[in-house]
């Protein structure tokens, strides 16, 4: 698509942003995979429409405030990137645009407070644990609360699991086949610390030594996707330092959102002194399922009862990182397990980072749709690769009592003979 976007105000972001605009040919192949387009059925809430709107804002022919609601509506699921035949790197436009927009926009006071609260809480496990702990006491009173506070409370689990103190190093069992470092994630450590424990165990069982650098912080994805680029950059730089100098085969993530965040480091740090280091770092970052399938794992034992499993593609795995085959390959190795794809698997479940906090209505509709499609598979269990999706799926499958777990948790339970 033709554009007249002046490059100067965009600095280092000019190149990736304008490249995304000019490679869009407006063909519309993105429309049916876009969750907001499916729910709202209007062009402004489609990837093609948003690219058009962002282009107009950057060209100066449209007020930012007018475009903002539609840009905000985007879940950032990147299903459009997978669907795009023309190769538009939508995230290269969206992430910097949100950052630029955030600098300029005026938010309402309550909005500001809530935003700040989220940004200052979620990325810090100890703060988040405290907030979630307090939230549990408020949960019975959520009927009295209205708006987004109530929505946030609804997403908290009934009981907060006990925190797990992670070791600095976990030694491989038997011969050491590889050495990796783990990004522990932040919200995940509070909501489901078992995912990290399971990761460590599965890696160790397969001869992998794991380092968990103490200085690591939140990956920054949450900040970047909500336009708080200052925070995202700060986190990214801290992590580059924390993981520097270790001799590693890979940097492992077990939350899809974090994994896609690490892969975006070169974009966030475009034009900064750390850009090159960020590229090497991003190259090393791998989702746990990718690493395991490349390494080759010892066959997990069969479950006690044959199981039907629905595999849910987390957007930030399938679309943002292109990881679709590896988790299925791992699941396919398990005897007595039947794996089902969920209809419309490319469509987001509505979790999308903080989306279910900021746009509860759309998130709810998407969650319900996903739950229906899960039920239609007739599966006994849902397996996925992202804590956000797990929280969302559990909320929407609560009544049916269908368990939801991480791929690595399933492997761990099988290795332990607990399933």
């Amino acid at each position: 698509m033709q554009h007249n976007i002046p490059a100067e105000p965009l600095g280092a972001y000019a190149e990736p942003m304008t490249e995304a605009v000019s490679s869009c040919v407006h063909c519309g192949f993105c429309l049916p995979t876009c969750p907001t387009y499916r729910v709202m059925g209007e062009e402004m809430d489609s990837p093609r429409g948003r690219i058009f709107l962002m282009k107009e804002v950057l060209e100066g022919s449209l007020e930012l405030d007018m475009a903002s609601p539609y840009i905000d509506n985007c879940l950032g699921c990147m299903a459009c990137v997978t669907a795009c035949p023309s190769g538009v790197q939508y995230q290269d436009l969206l992430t910097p645009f949100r950052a630029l927009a955030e600098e300029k926009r005026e938010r309402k006071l309550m909005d500001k407070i809530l935003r700040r609260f989220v940004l200052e809480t979620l990325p810090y496990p100890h703060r988040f644990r405290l907030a979630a702990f307090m939230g549990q006491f408020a949960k019975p009173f959520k009927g009295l609360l209205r708006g987004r506070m109530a929505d946030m409370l609804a997403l908290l689990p009934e009981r907060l699991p006990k925190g797990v103190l992670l070791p600095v190093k976990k030694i491989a069992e038997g011969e050491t086949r590889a050495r990796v470092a783990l990004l522990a994630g932040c919200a995940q450590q509070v909501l489901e610390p078992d995912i990290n424990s399971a990761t460590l165990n599965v890696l160790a069982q397969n001869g992998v030594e794991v380092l968990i650098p103490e200085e690591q912080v939140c990956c920054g994805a949450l900040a970047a996707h909500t336009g708080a680029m200052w925070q995202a950059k700060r986190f990214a730089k801290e992590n580059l330092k924390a993981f520097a100098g270790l001799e590693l085969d890979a940097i492992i993530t077990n939350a899809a959102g974090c994994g896609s965040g690490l892969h975006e480091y070169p974009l966030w740090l475009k034009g900064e002194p750390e850009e090159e280091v960020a590229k090497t770092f991003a190259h090393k970052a791998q989702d746990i399922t990718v690493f395991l399938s490349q390494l080759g794992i010892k066959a997990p034992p069969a479950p006690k009862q044959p199981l039907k499993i629905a595999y849910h593609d987390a957007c930030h795995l399938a679309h943002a990182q292109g990881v679709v085959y590896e988790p299925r390959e791992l699941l396919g190795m398990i005897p007595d397990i039947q794996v089902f794809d969920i209809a419309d698997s490319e469509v987001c479940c509505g979790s999308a980072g903080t989306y279910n906090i900021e746009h509860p209505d759309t998130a709810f509709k998407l969650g319900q749709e996903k739950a229906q499609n899960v039920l239609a598979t007739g599966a006994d269990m849902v397996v996925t690769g992202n804590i956000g999706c797990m929280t969302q799926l559990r909320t929407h499958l609560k009544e049916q009592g269908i368990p939801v777990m991480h791929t690595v948790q399933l492997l761990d339970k099988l290795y332990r003979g607990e399933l």
Partner: protein
Amino acid sequence: MSEALKTKLQTLFQERCLQDDAGVLPYESDGLTAFRSRPLVVVLPETQEEIIEVVKLCYRYDVPFVARGSGTSLSGGSMPIEGGVVIALNRMNRILHYDAAERIAVVEPGVINLYVTKKAVPDGLYYAPDPSSGPVCTIGGNVAFNSGGAHCLKYGMTSNHVLGLKVVLPNGDVADLGGESLEMVGPDLTGMFCGSEGLFGVALEVTLRLLPKPEVFKTILAAYHSLADAGQAVADVVASGLLPGAMEIMDRLAMDAAEAAVKAGYPAEAQGLLIVELEGPGEEVEAEFPKLMQVIEASGAYEIRVAKNEAERMKIWKGRKGAFSAVGRLSPDYVVQDGVVPRTKLGEALREIEKLSKTYGLRVANVFHAGDGNLHPLILYNGKLEGEFERAEELAGEILKLCVDLGGAVTGEHGIGVEKLAYLPYMYSDDDMDLMRFLRIAVDDKEIANRGKMLPSNKAPALTMHGAHPIEKQGIAFRE
């Protein structure tokens, strides 16, 4: 007039009447991004009654409108009319009635083409017309443009699969055309509505014919050292008496684009690539296959591959179907052309196009439905270079004239829209054009439905120029 209409529509549609910049801008273009125009408002109806009401109001206030589905038109067919109303039908996306035994589906116009097949697949049925934009484009748009697709060679165009239509005419009257059966009494009004590019009103309900899914597919891919050889092979296959489900050709440039987009694994040295798909009952396909291989081997293909399974077949098709958009990876801008030549003239047409491409100094990628002679030259240009867009348009025009000169047509499936307005009279005589205008005015006296598309609009000048139309003179039909 416009302001009064705007007020009415606002009252009627509230927040579903888009009028501010952010709401309207994204609707200014369709798949033809070289053009854009600003509508008065965009409305998002959710019921048939609302569509009818909008059309009635437009008629009363004499404001033109265009109905729009997914906005994938490559000829500007769904582009807004400056100052007119856009009726966006994306929320009219329900399958109203589905009957596997009767093999029909009654759908709203905003239903996506592929979703009809998705609905029917569990019963072993499918909806045959498969435009490359099938995962996106809507049935309403397919009806308006009588869309084709790779498999039209065997199954025909959209009009062969639309049994009935409920439409709102430009004056707000509602008409039922056709029915649920292929055999109907009287003239084929459904057929007349199909491909009328929105000039006769808006489809409210479309009754589609579903077909049983072919039992077996056999897809082969043949690589040639020259594009013309691939073209000749198509004529040879048809001459041998075979009727494959689809026969498609891609040239090197198109293959490069598809390769970059989906890694289809096409032969790296080929200058011309032919995809042939046999489909039907197992025994029939088994019997046809050796015959096809014989023809292809004799046609000078240097490599022939047969898809071993459904995954390989899908891979071949994915590259072909995404080819248009994939060209976006090779060039920031391009014009997709759509012309038809008789099958036997394919080789000649391709050679001429190559010459024109050299003369104009613009790259042309060729992707086409070779089986029915439907060419899709994609003219690559850089809109940032002064005058290059105009040169591309001129080259496109030369190609269209070439098609007509070879005995073909200026469009196979993308329609005239705004893009080919100038070339329709090159294909048709004045009398032919007059008859079309006559029909248009008979259905839409104010020319409010998609004004200015397909036929030049200034209130049918040819009729005033030539006085009464021949069929009027003969007393067959009258105006007023």
